[in-house]
């Protein structure tokens, strides 16, 4: 018999895993050897010590998210999260290098950069308010639109339902935003430099629509936007002043669904196009298209947002918040939500409570405001320098990160959750596998958008289902026990059925929107003419070569602002509670009025209200 310490029978004896013969042998040994008894006692103590460790539990229900991700993966043909492929990581992205520099505290000294510019959109995205039923544990959980508060036994929807659920809440927030701070996005023409006013006929038509009365979208189905996402250069042509938006009757997704002048319509202009470019080899993609998006995240006070201090910073740098296609906005906001969740878990100490707010926007404090824009690195650096120099505007140092905008490859390996000071490239970002996985998943979410685009372009949902099935079948099995795929057919069919239903609802809404837009065409026309006269049309609409190149040089920036001061929200709730419906209606009217008024006004030259500061 082997010596005592190396005798594996001790462990097996302790675990009751010995044969009868081995058991007898062990008992003889224990009877005769004090060392054997001591070893057995030590192992028993060790075992009981390990078994007495408190059990760790997840503080969230993963079921909804699991189903959503699984469905997305099935529809997109992925069976496993893709590995981080170095050859898919752009090596020379301008935004990445910018983010890398900006995210290092030491480099928060602003080097001068030459740049030229033009810009993109803004979306007010107020956070939750008292009275709104709590969201699921995570903001991006997939809940069926019709079952937003489904209990544990209710069937969750999978796949596209997730964006729908998010959008539903988002839209409610957006609607709540109008008038909350006394300003609407329709007031933003002041941010548009006259020379660079970007005109997009259909976008302006959209923007002329008054916002619909607030609807409790939490209790109503809200299909996800299915519009194909235009490429960055195409998406940038929305007049900032024309953003009266974000209602069910005035869905920005329609903006993305209609082609702009000079741009290809349909899937060619959306994700599919991006994917095709990717297939052709992405070597030139980073250079030729604005595939990267810079996220600038910081905390702001409600006051600085309401009094325009933050916007003035943007104006000073000639950055114009603009409208983004709804589905693009949704994708980013969903990713931003994921990011904030990662942050929640990666931070500790005094920041924990604040991070918690980001991770759970359904809480009672805080709201998230997304400002979309197009800017050059120099402009962004200027803004960040200004923000850092004005602690009254921002309550935290802005954090910068980069992600892919279109094909979902740009941000692989980048730390979306990197806090200030974290390096952003692979060499120094120190991104954990967890973060990488999250990033990959985020990008998968974006990559899944083509299915929406295809669906919007008329592809029969059944084809999607078949594609998903065939792709899934090709994915192989776990454990080597392959089996027929009938179940996946059923599950894909269920998902596709829901998609088809949502498509129908979307189509109905589009028709309604089209009618509404026709009514608003007359007053919109004036604005278009005014902005065209300003000479700031986007590439393809009539701008000169230099301006087109300049526009291409700009890339998308999303300012993700967490408004820390929730008092305005609480105050408004109090007004509603005390004054009843009459006063609430007055509040709603006050919200809508300035939006309508501004939406019908021609765009004002930026110089009229806030001349851009010299960069």
């Amino acid at each position, binding site marked *: 018999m082997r010596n005592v310490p190396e*005798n*594996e029978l*001790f*462990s*097996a004896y302790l*675990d009751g*895993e010995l044969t009868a013969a081995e058991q007898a042998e062990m008992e003889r040994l224990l009877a005769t050897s004090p060392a054997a008894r001591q070893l057995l006692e*030590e*192992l028993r*103590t*060790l*075992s009981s*010590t*390990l*078994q007495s460790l*408190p*059990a*760790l*539990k*997840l503080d969230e*229900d*993963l*079921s909804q998210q*699991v*189903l959503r*991700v*699984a469905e997305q*993966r099935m529809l997109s043909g992925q069976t*496993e*999260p893709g590995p981080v492929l170095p050859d898919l990581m752009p090596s020379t992205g301008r935004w990445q290098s910018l983010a890398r520099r900006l995210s290092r505290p030491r480099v928060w000294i602003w080097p001068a950069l030459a740049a030229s510019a033009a810009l993109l959109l803004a979306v007010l995205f107020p956070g939750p308010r008292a009275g709104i039923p709590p969201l699921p544990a995570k903001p991006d959980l997939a809940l069926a639109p019709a079952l937003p508060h489904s209990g*544990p*036994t*209710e*069937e*969750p*929807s*999978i796949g596209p339902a997730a964006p729908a659920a998010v959008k539903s809440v988002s839209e409610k927030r957006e609607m709540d935003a109008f008038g909350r701070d006394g300003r609407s996005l329709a007031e933003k023409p002041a941010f548009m430099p006259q020379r660079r006013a970007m005109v997009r006929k259909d976008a302006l038509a959209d923007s002329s629509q008054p916002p619909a009365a607030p609807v409790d979208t939490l209790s109503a189905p809200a299909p996800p936007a299915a519009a194909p996402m235009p490429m960055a250069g195409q998406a940038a042509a929305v007049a900032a002043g024309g953003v009266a938006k974000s209602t069910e009757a005035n869905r920005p997704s329609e903006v993305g669904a209609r082609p702009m002048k000079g741009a290809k319509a349909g899937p060619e202009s959306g994700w599919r196009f991006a994917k095709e470019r990717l297939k052709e080899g992405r070597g030139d993609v980073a250079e030729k298209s604005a595939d990267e998006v810079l996220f600038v995240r910081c905390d702001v006070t409600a006051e600085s947002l309401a009094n325009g201090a933050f916007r003035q910073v943007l104006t000073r740098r000639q950055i114009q918040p603009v409208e983004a296609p709804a589905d693009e906005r949704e994708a980013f906001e969903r990713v931003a939500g994921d990011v904030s969740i*990662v942050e929640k*878990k*990666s931070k*500790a100490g005094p920041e*924990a409570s604040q991070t918690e707010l980001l991770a759970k926007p359904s809480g009672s404090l805080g709201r998230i405001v997304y400002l979309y824009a197009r800017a050059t690195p120099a402009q962004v650096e200027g803004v960040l320098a200004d923000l850092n120099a004005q602690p009254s505007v921002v309550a935290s140092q802005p954090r910068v990160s980069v992600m892919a905008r279109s094909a979902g490859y740009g941000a692989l390996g980048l730390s979306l959750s990197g806090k200030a000071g974290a390096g952003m490239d692979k060499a120094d970002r120190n991104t*954990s*596998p*967890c973060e990488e*996985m*999250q990033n990959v998943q985020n990008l998968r979410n974006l990559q899944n958008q083509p299915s929406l685009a295809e669906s919007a372009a008329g592809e029969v949902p059944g084809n999607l289902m078949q594609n998903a099935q065939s792709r899934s079948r090709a*994915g192989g*099995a*776990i454990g080597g*026990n392959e*089996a027929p*795929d*009938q*179940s*996946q057919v*059923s*599950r894909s*069919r*269920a998902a596709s059925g829901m998609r088809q239903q949502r498509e129908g609802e979307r189509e109905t809404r589009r028709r309604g929107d089209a009618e509404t837009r026709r009514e608003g065409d007359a007053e919109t026309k004036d604005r278009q003419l005014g902005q065209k006269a300003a000479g700031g049309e986007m590439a393809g609409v009539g701008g000169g070569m230099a301006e087109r190149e300049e526009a291409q040089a700009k890339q998308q920036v999303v300012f993700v602002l967490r408004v820390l001061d929730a008092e305005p929200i609480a105050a408004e709730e109090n007004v509603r509670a005390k004054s009843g419906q009459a006063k609430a209606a007055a509040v709603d009217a006050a919200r809508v009025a300035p939006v309508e008024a501004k939406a019908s006004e021609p765009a004002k030259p930026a110089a009229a209200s806030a001349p851009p500061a010299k960069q």
Partner: protein
Amino acid sequence: MNDDSQWIAEALAGKSAAFGQLVRKYQDRLYNTVVHVVGCEEDARDVVQEAFVQAFVKLETFQHASAFYTWLYRIAFNVAVSHGRKKRPKISLEQTREATGQEPVDGQADPSQQAEQTERCRQVREALAALPEEYRSILTLREIDGCCYETIAEILDLPIGTVRSRLHRARLELRDQLKEVLIDD
């Protein structure tokens, strides 16, 4: 037909909520095991989620040759491996515990006993996290999750004899690291 089999059948028939029931049933148990294997709560959460996602996507390949939970575990371990999570934890459990103050302690114990209990947990988790991954996995499956040798062998795809010997070596290793703690007991 037990609950698991019924839920699996329903999920295969297109009722995704049934799979949600499986997630809810096993997520904490799986998490409590995986978190000790990967040594990081964030990673563990991701591994658990990914394991469930893969289980759902590949559910039709589950042939009931083993318990669903065993099959799920195997997926989870494969996920951990494929994502390179067999590294030393970058964020130790103890750091997270200390930061969040989530270490469960006996509410009846006096403060000094609570502190002692917390410290003891910290030491044990730290020692466990410091073990080589192959030891950590097998010890976790046996001691934390209570798996039998046969199940461990199935999950880790090892012969039972290897399970027995590896488990013993893992215990000896951990015993050596925790000698002082165990002596105090």
